[in-house]
């Protein structure tokens, strides 16, 4: 009886120890799996962070460069514009002082002829005004001026730079042939000409 009881006790304890060992073994295996999963997850998350950082870095790089390129393009455009405007001022200066040049009489006659033709009236009224020009300088105009027309000579240059304005007697048809309006009419050609002369292409 005593011997079989001892065996039973030993067996109970042996089963318990076996079960305990199995429990610990399972826990260790699970622990190993948890750590392995954690390492893989950490690796995956790290790779995602780095991949996103690379995309973000490229975006930052592009943003900095495109912003700089934009600013520099504007600087170049501003400089070109400044140069063109400087030349246009030179052109205006030259035009406003045309009365001192040999071209003046021929130019004034041509401007009057163009304006009279544009108004297409038997009795055109023509105003003419250039800087530093008096009646004496405009004798040649009478040769191209129609007999029924009226010539008004302004002492001051018309539209600041000078030129000719023709109307019909009622003032319904007006043709502005001043330097300023010619500059405006020829704006595109003028800019192209200046640009190609200075910058080429």
């Amino acid at each position, binding site marked *: 009886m005593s011997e079989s009881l001892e065996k039973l006790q030993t067996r109970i304890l042996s089963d318990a120890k076996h079960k305990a060992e199995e429990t610990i073994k399972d826990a260790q295996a699970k622990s190993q799996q*948890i750590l392995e999963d954690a390492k893989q997850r950490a*690796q995956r998350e790290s790779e995602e962070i780095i991949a996103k950082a690379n995309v973000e870095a490229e975006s930052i790089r592009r943003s900095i460069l495109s912003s700089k390129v934009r600013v520099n393009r504007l600087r*170049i455009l501003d400089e070109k514009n400044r140069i063109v405007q400087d030349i246009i001022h030179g052109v205006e200066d030259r035009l406003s002082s045309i009365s001192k040049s040999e071209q003046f009489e021929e130019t004034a006659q041509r401007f009057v002829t163009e304006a009279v033709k544009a108004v297409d009236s038997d009795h055109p009224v023509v105003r003419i005004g250039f800087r530093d020009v008096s009646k004496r300088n405009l004798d040649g105009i009478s040769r191209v001026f129609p007999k029924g027309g009226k010539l008004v000579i302004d002492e001051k240059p018309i539209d600041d730079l000078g030129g000719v304005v023709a109307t019909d007697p009622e003032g319904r048809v007006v043709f502005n042939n001043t330097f300023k309006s010619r500059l405006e009419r*020829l704006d595109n*050609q003028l800019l192209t000409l200046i640009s190609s002369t200075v910058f080429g292409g």
Partner: protein
Amino acid sequence: MSGIDAVKKIVETEAQARRIVDEASAKAQQIISESREQAERIRQEAIARAQQQREEILREAKSKAEAEALQSDKETEQVLNSYRKLSEERKSAAVSKAVELILNA
């Protein structure tokens, strides 16, 4: 040994066995709990390292882009200087051609 004593012995042994199993179970819980904590530490450390790398990547990208931007500034300055030089050389010709256009167009 009487029957009662035998039963007592068995009961004690079973209690001892239960303790062994319970202790193992508690230890197993502790092992898993510790490994979960260690797993979280591993994750946090890896993320922290990745974040540092991220900061470094961004810093390098910014610094590299700023260097490239400086190069763009230099190139722009060269273009501006060449325009200014061209303007000085060709301004007179451009004015003459423009005046001719306005007078004769």
